[in-house]
């Protein structure tokens, strides 16, 4: 059994190495403490990072806790991180936006919104690991439905899908 400080250290190390969201239950399993204790320590840890105004923050999302840089320092990180080599085409970006907001969604549904074929864009997004097949629609032909991946969130600096920029007025207008 770990003492409190060690437990914190272990959780920090796990969050750092994992580099993606990890559920509090998994943290509890790995460190051998109860779910409740893990939750308390996690919250305490996140608070400490906030109070210290550390360059790192611990955010909780629906998929668990994840470590990322504090938004205030984003321009320094941008400066320090290697430039993104490949840019997404406009077609890929639009397709990705539609999938992100409407997931799960079939190819035909994406095409209906954009008014053009989407196979090439879907293929390239899938190859880059930004979208994946998430099931089949219970409709004639059982078409594949697509959703975004964890890699998508990371690439766009989102801790969860809830972080997506809010959809625009027209959508509200229609809805």
């Amino acid at each position, binding site marked *: 059994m770990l003492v409190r400080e060690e437990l914190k250290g272990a959780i920090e190390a796990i969050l750092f190495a994992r580099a993606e969201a990890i559920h509090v239950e998994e943290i509890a399993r790995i460190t051998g403490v109860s779910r409740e204790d893990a939750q308390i320590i996690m919250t305490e840890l996140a608070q400490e990072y906030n109070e210290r105004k550390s360059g790192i923050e611990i955010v909780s999302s629906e998929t668990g806790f994840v470590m990322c840089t504090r938004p205030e320092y984003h321009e320094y990180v941008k400066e320090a991180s290697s430039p993104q080599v490949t840019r997404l085409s406009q077609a890929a970006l639009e397709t990705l936006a539609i999938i992100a*907001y409407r997931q799960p969604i079939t190819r035909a549904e994406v095409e209906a919104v*954009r008014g053009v074929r989407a196979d090439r864009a879907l293929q390239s997004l899938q190859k880059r690991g930004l979208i994946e097949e998430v099931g089949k629609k219970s409709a004639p032909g059982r078409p594949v439905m697509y959703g975004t991946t964890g890699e998508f969130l990371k690439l766009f600096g989102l801790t969860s899908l809830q972080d997506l920029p809010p959809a625009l007025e027209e959508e509200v207008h229609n809805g």
Partner: protein
Amino acid sequence: MSYSVKLEIYEGPLDLLLKLIEQNRVDIYDIPIATITDQYLDSLEELAEVDLELLADFLLVAATLINIKTRMLLPRPRVDETMEEEEDPRQDLVNRLVEYRSFKALAQALEQRYEGVLPRVYFRDPQELEPQVELHATLAQLVRSFRNVWIEREETEIPVKIPEGDVDIREQMQVIEEWCSKRRRGLKLQDLFVGAVSRREALVLFMALLELIRQGRVRAAQDEPFGPILISKTWSRENVG
């Protein structure tokens, strides 16, 4: 006025329509359908440079535009008092355009995050650890591998060298005959070599078998091409007696 446009730079027919609406500075909810349709059709003259798949999509919207234009030119039927306000023929298209426009904006917002224009958080790549490896294997695989390799062994190890004098072919001939007499249906060729722990032993067994076949004391039969070769005792008269 005609707008000469290169269609390649448009993401699709809806994108082209949006650009035309923008250029004309008209309200998306009140599109001057005649003007926009004409401009859209003018733009289609560039279609030779567009691949066929794209062309079909552009033509579909062109047909929609012409249809709306026609409906708007027709005298409006008298509105029945019980009916609600007649729907604007442009409504469906407007809805699609508005929806598409909002996704274009969202795509742009995403792009800005991606390029770090807007404040965002950054993650790191997972630490390079010695990965925790989970080995997957099944017993069936293991058994199959053993069979494969054991059977293949017989095929690859055709004797190339006469064994030295410390091997007794006669003894092995007896062994084979004994095995065969225990099995009425015969013995699979490869099973003959199961007990052999060395090349030499396998070789001697094989030579013993050849000798038995030559003398007509056992026979080797294969029921089907690539099927197992069965070794069985020849039940000659003297054997029976």
